[in-house]
Structures are given as C-alpha cells and as structure tokens.
C-alpha cells in the first residue's frame, strides 16, 4: 500500500526522543493510518534510535496495534462477559456471514474489517457492536443489516 508519510515526522515530534515515547507514537500512527505501516515502523525506530525488533516487540504485544491495513468501517463486536451471556456469538455469526469474512479479516474492497473486543464498557446495553466510533446497544439479529449499512 502506498501512503502519504508526510505526517509522520509531525507525529514523532509530538513526543520526546526517548525509547519511552515508543508506545505513544505507535498509538498515534495506528490512529492516523488505522494500522502500523511497515515503513512507518522503520522510520520510528530510526528516529528513536532503537532496534526495529524492539518496535515489533511492542507492536505485536498489544492488541491495539495491527500490522495489516483495516477497512473503512471497522466493525468491533464486543465479546466480553456481559455480551457473551446475552448472545454476542450469534451476532458475530450474523455479521461474519453477511460480510463474508471472519473476525480479524478485511473485505477485499477494503470497506469492512471485523474485530472482536473484550468489553467496550457499555455492558448494560449488551450485546454491543461498535462501527468506528459509534456504539450500538441491545443489538438483535434483525438489526445487524441496518448497523452494517449505517454511515
């Protein structure tokens, strides 16, 4: 994938040049590109003067990071305890079958990605599905289609 990396120096400059800044920088890169492009990781390693292996160690330890590009709409299905008990598996099945991909995958047209998360903190409204920043509570099989289509 080709990216415009012109924003990268600015992201790195938000933090002091020390190894401690790594986590914050990676979070900002993830936010900007929706994943961690390899090129960006290399540049970060160079800027902080740390080995690339260290950058990968952090990138792969934390769930917040992805090394693969994400679709325009990231569907996050909560599979936390409250949602599990109230049938999140069924909702996950429906979403997966309607989009034709499994959790952790992205559609070929780069429109949708599905992720599962353990609790988004809206447990009283279980089961919960989030589409990018918008939360949907008390999701039912019958409104999955509408949620997927929503802007």
């Amino acid at each position: 994938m080709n990216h415009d990396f012109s924003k990268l120096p600015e992201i790195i400059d938000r933090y002091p040049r020390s190894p401690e800044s790594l986590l914050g920088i990676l979070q900002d890169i993830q936010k900007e590109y929706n994943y961690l492009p390899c090129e960006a990781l290399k540049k970060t390693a160079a800027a902080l003067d740390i080995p690339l292996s260290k950058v990968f160690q952090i990138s792969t330890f934390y769930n917040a990071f992805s090394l693969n590009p994400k679709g325009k709409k990231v569907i996050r299905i909560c599979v936390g305890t409250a949602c599990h008990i109230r049938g999140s598996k069924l909702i996950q099945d429906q979403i997966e079958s309607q989009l034709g991909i499994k959790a952790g995958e992205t559609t070929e047209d780069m429109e949708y990605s599905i992720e599962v998360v353990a609790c988004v903190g809206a447990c009283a409204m279980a089961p919960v599905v989030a589409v990018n920043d918008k939360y949907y509570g008390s999701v039912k099989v019958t409104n999955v289609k509408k949620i997927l289509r929503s802007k």
Partner: protein
Amino acid sequence: MHVKNTTQLKQAQKKIVAEQKKFPKKVIVCCGTGCLANGAAKIVDAFKKVLDERKIKDFAVEALCETGCHGFCEQGPLVVIEPRGTFYTKVKPKDVQQIIERSIENDETIEKLLYTDPQNGEKIERYNDVSFFSHQRRIALRNLGKIAAHDINDYIAVDGYQALAKVLKKMTPDEVIESVTKSGLRGRGGGGFSAGRKWRTCRDVESDTHYILCNGDEGDPGAFMDRSIMEGDPHAVLEGMAIGAYAVGASEGFIYVREEYPLAVVNIQKAIESAVEIGLLGDNILGTDFSFNIKISRGAGAFVCGESSALMRSVGGEIGEPRAKYIRSVVKGLHDKPSVLNNVETFVNIPIIINKGADWFAAIGTPKSTGTKAFSLVGKVRNTGLIEVPMGITLREIIYDIGGGIIDNRPFKAVQTGGPSGGCIPESMLDLPVDFDSLTEVGSMMGSGGMIVMDDRTCMVDLARYFLAFLVDESCGKCVPCREGLYQLHAIVSRICDGKGVEEDIEKMEKLSEMVVLGSLCGLGISGPNPLMSTLKYFRNEYEAHIRDKRCPAGVCRELITYEINDKCTGCMACIAVCATNAITGKKKEVHVINQEQCTKCGACYAVCMHDAIEVF
C-alpha cells in the same frame, strides 16, 4: 479565574453556587456511554434548539447539564428535571418540546415518559423513589449524573477540591495517611489491600522521587464502573490522586486509561487542563509548596497491563510483562522509584473521607470491608446498570431489589463476580453478604466490580471455556504454567463442550489447575483457574451431563443441541430470513422445518421467533 489560596477557593465556590441559583430549574441529560448509544446527543441538541428558539423566563441553555452516567442505562436516554427530581426515561428528541412546555414552563409531569414499576405497573415520578436508586448508597458515584463532567465549576460547587485544600492547610502527610488507614478503605481494584498501609510503606521508602499512579485499565470484561467515573467525575479522581501525592510525597502522577475508553481520555485531559489553569494542579498549589502534575498514559489493549508491575512497565513504554513479586512496586515501581498504584474508585473515595472523616466512612459497610462498592450489574438481570451499595448487603438484595430480578422471570442460576479472576456463585448462596472476605471464601472474589447475572440458559461449562479463552489470549506468556497450563485447560473444556469429554477430564483439570496456581508469577495465572474451579465446585452436574450424557442442559453448546420447530409455528417466515445457511424451508402460513444437516445451531431462528415455535433439545 486562578485560585491562590483556600480562601479564594471558598469564595469561588460561593460565586459559582450563586450563579447556579439564578436558574430555579435545571434539566439534566445523561450523556454516559449507554445513553449516548441510545441517542442522548440528539436530545441535548433538541433542547438547545428549542431553548434557543423560545426565550423562557429564568431559564437558559446554561441550565442544561450534560452529565456522566446515572447508572440506569437500561432505561436511557434519561432526563431529570431538578429540583423536583422528575425522572423521564427513554426520551426521544420529539419529546423535548413537550418537556419544555409542560415540565419547565409549568410544573406538570408527562405520564408517558415516567418509569413504570415492573412489579405493580405504577408510574413513578421521582428519581429517588425508583427502586433501582432507592436501595443504593452513592459515595464513589456521588457526583455521577449530578454534575457536568466538562465543567470544573460544577465540581467546585459540590465541595470539589475542598478536601485537597483541607489537607494542604491543616493536615500533615502523616495525618492524611492515618486518616485513610483509619477509614479502613481497601483497594477497589480487586485485591482489597489497605490503601492507608500502602501509602505508609511508600512514604517510608527514602527516595528523591515518589510516584502516584491511578489504575484506569478496567480489564475485567463486563465492568464499567471506572469508565463511568473517569468520564463523569474526572475531577474527583484528580483530587484523590493529589491528596495521595501529598501524603506520599509525590510530585508526578499518571493515570493509565484503557484504550477502549476514548471519552475517558478526553474528559480527563480536559479536567487536568482546567485544574492546572485554575491552579489546583501544577506548581505551588493553593499557595503552598506542594506541586503536583498528572499525565495520562493510554493503555494499548492488554489485560495483563492492569497488573501493577506490568502497568508500570507499560507506562514506561515497555511491553507489559509482570515481574517477580519479591520486589514490591511500592518500594521499586515506576522507573524503579517507590510508587503507589490505586484503582480509580479507591481514589474517588479519598476526598470524601477527608471531608467527612475516617469514622464516618468506617461506620458504613462491615467492620472489615468499610464503605461502599460500585458494581456493574449486567447479564440476564432486568435493570442492568451501574450501582453502588454498602458493603455487606446481600447478593439477593442487589439482584432482586435493585436489579428487579431476572429477565422474563426465568430461574436464576448464578452470579459471576471478580471477572476472569473470580468465580460463579450459585443460588444457594444468594444471601451471602457482599464483602471482600465472604466472596473470597466461596471461591470468587470482589474484583473490580463486574457482577454478571446468569439464568438457566447460561451454560456454566461454556462460561468456563469463555474465561479460559480470554486468559489464554491475554497471558503474557512469560511463565510456562500460565501460558501452557491455561491453554491445556481450555483445550479440555472445549472438548467437553464439543461432547468429546471423558470421565477423567474433571480430575485432570483439577490437578492442572493446582499447578497453574502454584507455578504462575502474577495474578492472571494465579487466579486464572478460578472461573473453572468454581463452576466445577458448584455446577459439577453440568460438566457431568456434557461428559456422560452428551447433553448441554442450558441449550448452549452447539455440538450437543438441536433446534426444532413445533406446531406453534404460524409460518411467518421470520426465521427463514435470518438463517445464514438456508437450513429452514417452508411456505407462508405453513409450519416450517429445519434441515438438521445444514443447521449450524447458531440460534438465529430461536432469537427471532415471536411464537415460541422453536425449541432447543
């Protein structure tokens, strides 16, 4: 505004209160995550629009208050009209015009928006009369749903930062620690360690730097107390931390916030900025030589980072792997300096202990577990939401009086507390008092406060599998017993769920669990087998049904169940539309049939059938 000393803070408070009194009525719109998901933002916009259009005497947009979570998420979006306390539920934007005309311009109530008591069908007008609220005692959640999270003035108006002023002016750090110790406050993040004693140990370590950290990682899936506090009352967290910092001699603090909580990050950041601007954080607070700054550290989605040593490494930009316990983090924590880590709820209790006194706090709850505890009451209970109760209250009171019982009046099966480190408590123990020690005694634990209620349609074997899968994912992998042991336990439980379990499996799991407990380094591994062990202890018959009879009594485990359509089917075709594998055939108005070969047992048909025509066997 900049307050330079305690007198100026008092004056500021008076001024703000006088300003607020200008409006005889106030409209409170809950903007907690639950209500926002239900469309609360649209309600706020509608109020603003109508208020802008109509000029109402003694009422302006300023009298509109966007608060954090009230807790009664099930009924959202919620609107409260103060001072009467009129409580409107499930409000829609189109209701706003009417609320303004009838409840603000006049003193009428709108029947149809009132909460209906499910027990007797009566409409209840006032907030405090709703049983969900009337059985609670709110201390940590005192300001939630009452003040605007975005506005430091609102916090100052309700005695905010007065406790900080009091300790800076009138108390020595030792006196603060003594007071916190005497209050009996135990950490609310899970372990229940005395907060005062932790502070004492940290203060006594000689060092040029001490740190204070707040654990807002809230990794326990199914819990959202800390989230609601951080979003709805961020200043109380900051004030509690500042008092802690003064007590242990820290000048720098960190709040570690979970990555899934973006709104909490925004609100805390804003709170820090306004506190610094007014002079309640930063250098020489209130004209004393106490200086304190707080930074936010965002988590990156790893449960193990809630563990103290892992959290401190993560704040330092490293991967969050716990370290051996013989070095304690109160002695050598962040950057190897003495550090205090407390949970969000622990910190918000501090200002009120200082203001009202240790004895006041110690008198609430039980002698060994003082004060109150916030819980997220979720699962198959009718009134889901955020609650706070005095320690020592029974589970029955929580689930039936506050929670209103089980959805659809189904039989209660168990309640899970303590998250992935806790256990399931069966019906026979519903009269158990909720406090740190009683819960631990029965094989569960207090944890951070998730309380998940389960009915007869929750399979306990599947639940054990769920928690083990979570822990296998989240184990950092440093120690073999945790990494491999939990993995094998999960494999065995999965096999049982799939109907391939054998008689010896139960004993094997018990032995392996013991090893995991003995050989793991951190709490994740040590308490990891708890959900499994407690279900084995109280629900062994379910395991046996899976193993011996190849049957899932709750109708959950897919390999062991079949869905069938009975003659109540009206031929409405609703199930056909949702079946992903086209396993259901049938014409309109004729009884449908499920082709068992094609059926994946996902249960979609069961979920949509309105006629009880689908049965699980």
